[in-house]
């Protein structure tokens, strides 16, 4: 079932601000969650979301398809806006790991203990996500934060269905391991190799490269 009617989709393509408002109401939370996960800064995510909806208003006429196509277009636009933001900052999103205060909106309904626990959880999740490959991370964010299906994620990222499912599966397993406090064999091997490099510099000369943990 689609989030909004085909009539609204036609309005979006015609540049009708009322139709854009309906789409905003349906997808704003998911889009903001996705952008927050991408840029790790709520204020920046809000700005990028505004830019994304303005693009939808101006370029909506280029969308071919109905409501589903508009949803994919919106997340794809947000994806590229986040990439542009990273390029401008010339830094990776991992740089901001461990600063959940920049993501969370002020929540006066929760008590201080609850907030502290939530902040701790957020920090653990972000730390775990930072150890995943960028593709796994993005697939998981689109799948579980934005609620897109595998085919929709494929269209957003320009990948086929199988590749998306594979990235999702590996990402889920790695995330579960990391959050459960386990260390994978790959991680252990990386540490061994790193130790060996320190002791035996010739290993580097032979071209053996350390395998990054959780690359699937």
């Amino acid at each position, binding site marked *: 079932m689609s989030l909004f009617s085909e009539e609204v989709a036609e309005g979006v393509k015609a540049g009708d601000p009322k139709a854009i408002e309906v789409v905003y109401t349906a997808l704003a939370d998911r889009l903001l969650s996705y952008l927050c996960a991408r840029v790790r800064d709520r204020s920046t995510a809000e700005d990028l979301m505004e830019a994304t909806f303005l693009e939808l208003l101006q370029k909506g006429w280029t969308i071919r398809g109905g409501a589903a196509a508009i949803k994919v277009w919106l997340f794809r636009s947000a994806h590229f806006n986040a990439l542009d933001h990273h390029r401008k900052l010339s830094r990776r999103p991992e740089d901001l790991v461990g600063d959940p205060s920049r993501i969370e909106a002020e929540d006066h309904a929760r008590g201080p203990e609850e907030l502290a626990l939530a902040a701790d959880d957020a920090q653990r999740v972000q730390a775990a996500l930072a150890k995943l490959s960028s593709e796994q991370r993005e697939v998981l964010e689109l799948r579980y934060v934005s609620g897109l299906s595998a085919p929709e994620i494929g269209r957003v990222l320009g990948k086929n269905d199988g590749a998306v499912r594979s990235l999702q599966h590996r990402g889920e397993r790695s995330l579960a*391991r990391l959050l459960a406090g386990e260390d994978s064999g790959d991680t252990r091997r990386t540490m061994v190799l790193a130790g060996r490099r320190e002791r035996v510099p010739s290993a580097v000369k032979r071209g053996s490269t350390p395998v990054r943990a959780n690359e699937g």
Partner: protein
Amino acid sequence: MTQPDDDIEQAVAMLRRTLQQRVTPEVRARHLGSVQRRAAQMRVAQRRSQRAARRPRVALLAALVGAMLIGTSSAALAASDSSLPGDLLYPVKRGGEEVRLIVAIPFSAQGGVQLEIAAARVHEALGVAQDRPEEVLPLIAEAQAAIAAAQAVGEPQVAQVAEQLRDEVGAAIAIAEDVAPEAVAALPASGLSDELALATETDTTTATLPGEPSRAGAGGLGAVGSPGPDDLETDPITGAPIPRSGSAETSTASPSPSPSPSASPTSSED
């Protein structure tokens, strides 16, 4: 090593819980306000571009309409050449004459135009003499005025044109008298004498100016053919004017009025 499904479910739930964000009402109002403003700007820009795109089309349309108007005016002017007083195109003809007088440069060129106007009025007088005899004398008066105006600007062709028009003036007056003598008789005496002066003067070197005393017998456009009112006698039976014998004898070179209203005007033109 396979991760237990429970761990994966817990990890996914934790991911969802910690990354889930909600848009605050303030942010929503700000974003939708921006969308509304941008939409308004786009509408203005679209209207401007539509107007800009329409401008060449409007110019083209205006040029076409202008060309059509000029073409239609020229065609109407040409078609109105042979129109007579009371015709649909007659005002166009008169308007065209006014324009020709205005655009006649140098001033002396107005003389030629005035002579053409005089010729047109005389032709019209001849044309309406049968059906609307009451209009003959006013038209001849206009012709006379035009000739006087030509003379005033020193037009050298005045005498020649007056000579050429003399026969037609005489014929027109004769027809009008045949058809409705009362129409001619009803005119004020002074006006009538002026018109007839034009028609009866024999000296072709000058034309009588409007308002000048009549110089009947001294020369004019219609001297050869049209007797003056003093020369006319009334038929006691029909009431139609009959020219006096003395003046009738002098009218040999022009169509003389028929002695009775029953005579055909065409016979006098022969």
